[in-house]
């Protein structure tokens, strides 16, 4: 009791807010139950979970709610993701089908879903019902931007510091407020996200209707739209996008790309200001990285004689680069068989990520651009030691504190990546499994940076089920850490956070 008395963090407030978000989670669960009803699949996994979530939500919400301070905000964000990951795992466990039936696997899949990672432990795609697959996709859609929007919208209805939350959620993400009211901004972003999803469903159906993608069903269109726009990457098909025609694959590329584009820029695009895209330093950089890596990958594919037709070279290299770089993680082909050079291009792309203020994960192009610009500034200062030269993005001065934070973030990501790789290799050896170095690095990056598929057995047509349970637990923790961008977690771990 005395320990709790010393804590200045108001657990009750944070937990009460988590309760509100959990309550809101009832709706998608019931929605999935309706889909299960339609396909004649068991309703229990979803209805039971809905009841559980509603009960837990109401119970938590009843806790004394005080003012949401900065600390409560940090705590609430971290706990919300954790809570949804746990709740999301329940339908998998209750359904009790195939590889998802074990608690660790169910939690892995759910965490991978809600963090929009897309790494799967599903090795037997046909063993699962359509409703279970849809729940995987829906988790990812909510995780993309949905959680933020739901939380902000719900919380602002309760007139509690939504702005505080938004700030915590989007640390260095440049989510400029588009309207004076945070609630209106959240709603606007939500509509944009939903609109983009709807557009993709329509696009897929249209391609199917004109006969260019005869294999497309409404179910496929919805399930993939949920996971493309959220740059998350789960697919109900074992061959991912490889199961679809080239036209469908081509049509999916722009949606992954847009999902990883800053939503504020997308908003301006819908307002008829496309010039804002071209003016953005980060967008130009993002585009250049995508095109540059695609060019190199295509070059290596041609050199190794992987594909002979030029359309295939361009489609597969562009699709894979966009998919990996935006942290989506779809595949049109098993790139495990590609030459080492081409595979390494994809490995590099893992560390890029899309633009800040989008659904993407990983380091993000904004941070890399700050690193590049500040490095260029350092070189300039070698020649002009007295010069004061602020780092600018699209003309705006980047605060020196932010530059420092960016370096810290990149460095921390590197350290965590290396430590995780070492852990994966060591843990596999302990469990008597064989994991190659590149495979271990790939799997570490793919989980921690929330990408999904890696190389080798965890490759695009493989899965993560075979990793030792301890490794999977480590992956679960780091997917969570990666999605909420390390810093809030580290903040939670500092003694200062818990002291006055």
């Amino acid at each position: 009791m005395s320990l709790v008395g010393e804590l200045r963090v108001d657990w009750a407030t944070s937990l009460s807010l988590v309760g509100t978000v959990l309550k809101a989670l009832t709706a998608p669960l019931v929605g999935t139950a309706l889909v299960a009803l339609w396909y004649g699949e068991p309703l229990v996994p979803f209805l039971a979970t809905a009841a559980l979530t509603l009960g837990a939500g109401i119970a938590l919400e009843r806790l004394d709610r005080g003012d949401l301070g900065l600390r409560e905000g940090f705590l609430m964000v971290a706990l919300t993701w954790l809570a949804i990951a746990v709740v999301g795992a329940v339908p998998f466990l209750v359904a009790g089908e195939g590889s998802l039936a074990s608690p660790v696997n169910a939690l892995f899949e759910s965490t991978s879903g809600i963090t929009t990672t897309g790494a799967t432990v599903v090795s037997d795609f046909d063993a699962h019902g359509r409703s279970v697959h849809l729940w995987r996709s829906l988790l990812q859609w909510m995780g993309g931007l949905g959680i933020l929007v739901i939380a902000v919208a719900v919380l602002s209805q309760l007139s509690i510091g939504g702005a505080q939350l938004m700030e915590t959620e989007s640390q260095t993400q440049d989510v400029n407020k588009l309207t004076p009211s945070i609630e209106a901004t959240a709603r606007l972003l939500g509509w944009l996200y939903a609109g983009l999803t709807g557009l993709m469903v329509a696009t897929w159906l249209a391609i199917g209707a004109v006969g260019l993608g005869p294999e497309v069903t409404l179910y496929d269109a919805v399930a993939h739209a949920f996971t493309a726009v959220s740059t998350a990457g789960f697919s109900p098909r074992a061959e991912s996008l490889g199961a679809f025609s080239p036209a469908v694959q081509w049509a999916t590329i722009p949606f992954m790309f847009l999902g990883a584009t800053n939503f504020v820029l997308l908003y301006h695009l819908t307002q008829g200001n496309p010039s804002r895209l071209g003016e953005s330093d980060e967008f130009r950089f993002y585009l250049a990285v995508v095109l540059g890596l695609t060019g190199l990958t295509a070059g290596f594919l041609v050199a190794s004689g992987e594909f002979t037709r030029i359309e295939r070279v361009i489609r597969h290299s562009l699709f894979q680069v966009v998919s990996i770089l935006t942290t989506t993680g779809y595949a049109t082909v098993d790139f495990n068989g590609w030459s080492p050079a081409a595979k390494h291009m994809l490995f590099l792309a893992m560390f890029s990520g899309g633009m800040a203020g989008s659904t993407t994960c990983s380091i993000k192009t904004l941070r890399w651009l700050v690193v590049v610009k500040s490095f260029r500034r350092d070189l300039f200062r070698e020649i002009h030691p007295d010069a004061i030269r602020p780092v600018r993005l699209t003309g705006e001065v980047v605060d020196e504190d932010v530059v420092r934070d960016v370096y810290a973030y990149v460095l921390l990501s590197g350290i965590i990546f290396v430590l995780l790789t070492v852990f994966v290799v060591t843990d596999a050896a302990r469990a008597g499994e064989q994991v190659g170095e590149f495979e271990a690095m790939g799997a570490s990056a793919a989980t921690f940076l929330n990408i999904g598929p890696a190389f080798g057995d965890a490759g695009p047509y493989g899965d993560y089920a075979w990793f030792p349970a301890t490794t999977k637990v480590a992956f679960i923790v780091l997917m969570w850490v990666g999605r909420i961008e390390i810093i809030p977690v580290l903040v939670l771990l500092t003694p200062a956070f818990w002291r006055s």
Partner: protein
Amino acid sequence: MRVVIVGAGEVGSTIAESLAQSHDVVVIDIDSDRVESLTYSLDVLPIEGDGSDIDTLEEAGVADADMVIASTDDDETNIVACGAANVVSDAFTIARVKSPKYLTAWQRARGAFGVDFMVCSDLLTAEAIVGLAGLPTAQDVDMFADGLVQMTEFEIPAESPVADQTVAEADRFDSLTFAAIIRDDEVVIPRGDTRIEAGDEVVAIGSPESIRAFSSEIAPEERGPEDVVIVGGGEIGYQTARLLEERGFSPRLVEQDEDRARWLAEKLPSTTVLNSDATDQDLLDRENVGMADVIVAALENDQQNLLATLLAKRKGTDRAITVVNTGDFTELFEAVGVDVAVSPRKATAEEITRFTRARRAENVAIIEGDRAEVLELEVDADSVLVDRSIRDVAADIPEGVVIGAITRGDEHITPRGDTIVREGDHVVVFVDTEVLDEVTEKL
């Protein structure tokens, strides 16, 4: 015209001096010594008091005044004085401000604050510096006819190919007129056979392009400046850098105060801001200031400006433009090695005087401390110029007048003997002060 001037500092006294001959001038100042010294030096009515105080203004007879000029060193006082004057009189109000923020607000709504005309010293100075920086050997630059015509005073260096040529030989530009040559305080109206000597100051009127071409003719070894170093990041230094950026330059700016330097670096994306002391010789070497084309010294302190300029010149900088805050130092600075000394107070006084005179002309430039003026006039039906060729008119106008340029609509016409002037044309004329009144009456 009855003119009330608030503030008898350098700006106020200079204006008072130039207006006193032909107008009733009242000068208000809070400082009794200044008031007393004015009493003996100028033919004006000095009043001791606070110019922003309505009682003082009424005592100065502001109700009957045609013009109120607020020219103290304090921006707010000047604005309030104009506002107060506006309450009790219909006089035209002119306010001098240093900070461009007031000018920005005033430009949005002319007449704001009760000010009819606003002059911003720092911006004016920066504009003058930028105009001079672009033209090697230029001493003074003024624009006429909405920028179609430019008047520039050049000093002819000894090594210039133009030195020792006749005007006819040097005049190879279509739209350029040699209006005058100023030689040892004397104004020479050039003829075709007049010889240009080294050290002369040539007043040229013409299109900006021809002026630029002539500038490189005078000093062919000097390309247009590319590398400009500004010393001092005060308001003048900042505005100079900003205007240079607008013209596509990437200047370097040295500022000693770190916080100010950081502020400047954030405001000026194309400027390299150096946080250092401009009189630090190591900095000058490190930054190769000697290789710079132009150094602009815009520190707050005259002595430091001179020191920074001389150090840079010693390192080899081609051209130095230096701000002098004490107008009396101008000639001294130019004598010891500064190429052009710019005084913000003089520039302000000149601008206000210009404006008071320009109410009869469209625009006025004052040459070399009142020795001559360049006027822009719109030709009306009564003018002796209308529908006659310039050769014919010559007999009717006195010596000491040169028609430098004519604009008709957007068109620039170079005046030659057979050029016919039409009603509605704008003429830019160079006029010796001695014949000023006679000329303005006739044209």
